[in-house]
């Protein structure tokens, strides 16, 4: 069954239809949150909140854009809100003052990693840190292209910009991330 039919059924309150939509997109949403936030801390709660909002907004989905584009906007808006909240919480915490305020909000993985995965985890963290260092505008376009594999036209629709702007942002984002990860990606076997 395609997304459209599932959305129609979910709108009528069919729980199984919405569950299927969740199953289809949960991995993408989780990784979008992960790449955008740069941490696993609170990730599952955020991913749940995305689908709660999706469910709440289903009656307003107009079928003109793809379901994923719509879910993506909800995910990104939620992540932006969360980043803002975490920054405020951190700014208000005593730990922030004690540390001189130089620690980043999103740099602590919530789970410990087995020893043999440490290297992989370190590499992942470097990429995540690199992505976090980009402006939100550049991070978004890079995630949509490199992770979601969306064509330029679809990225332009999701972001509400021209295809030319997508090309330009992608080039800037790639150049900046490449400069940050140059040593790491060249060290790869």
């Amino acid at each position, binding site marked *: 069954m395609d997304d459209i039919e599932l959305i129609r059924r979910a709108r009528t309150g069919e*729980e199984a239809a*919405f*569950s299927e939509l*969740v*199953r289809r997109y*949960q*991995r993408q949403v*989780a*990784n979008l949150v*992960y*790449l955008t936030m740069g941490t*696993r801390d609170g*990730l*599952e709660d955020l*991913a*749940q909140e995305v*689908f*709660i909002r999706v*469910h*709440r907004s289903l009656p307003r989905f107009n079928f003109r854009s793809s379901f994923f584009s719509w879910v993506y906007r909800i995910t990104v808006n939620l992540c932006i809100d969360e980043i803002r909240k975490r920054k405020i919480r951190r700014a208000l915490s005593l730990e922030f003052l004690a540390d001189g305020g130089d620690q980043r909000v999103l740099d602590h993985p919530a789970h410990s990693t087995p020893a043999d995965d440490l290297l*992989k985890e370190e*590499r*992942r963290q470097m*990429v*995540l840190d690199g*992505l976090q260092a980009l402006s939100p505008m550049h991070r978004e376009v*890079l*995630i949509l*292209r*490199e*992770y979601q594999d969306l064509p*330029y036209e679809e990225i332009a629709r999701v972001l509400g910009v021209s295809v030319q702007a997508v*090309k*330009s942002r*992608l*080039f800037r984002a*790639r*150049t900046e*991330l*490449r400069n940050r*990860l*140059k040593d*790491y*990606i*060249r060290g*790869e076997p």
Partner: protein
Amino acid sequence: MTHEIWKELISRHVDGETTPEEERQLHNHLATCSECRDFQEDLKQLRPAIREAAVLDLGPSFVVTVNERLREEESRIDSWIAVERLARNTVMGLAFTVAVVLAVMASMRSREANAPEPTILTASNDSTAARVLLEHEELTKGDVLLAVVTK
């Protein structure tokens, strides 16, 4: 062309978004420019690096948790709707009562306004009438009493 322009072309090239003519020009340029070759190689590594970083899966229990949260939310909304309905009914009941009271009061006032002018012998003015009549010496208290009783 500057390196900046070649690199922008390389960015589109790794996405397969270049024309055959651009591909030909780029191929010739890369044959002679090590800086742009390095750039191209690095860009090709970005995609696997990002994908390797995004390896999370939430597992089958995730959808169960989402459904539980949705049911909780629906139950909360139902509670609010019940509270709202009760509040609305209470307010409407009060408004109806007030409207009825006001209508009754208005009706009474209107009835009073339309009532005939009181005569000298209406109950409220009987004592005044009696006093006035008594002031005229021709009438006795018995005459006045008789007049009142007759009325």
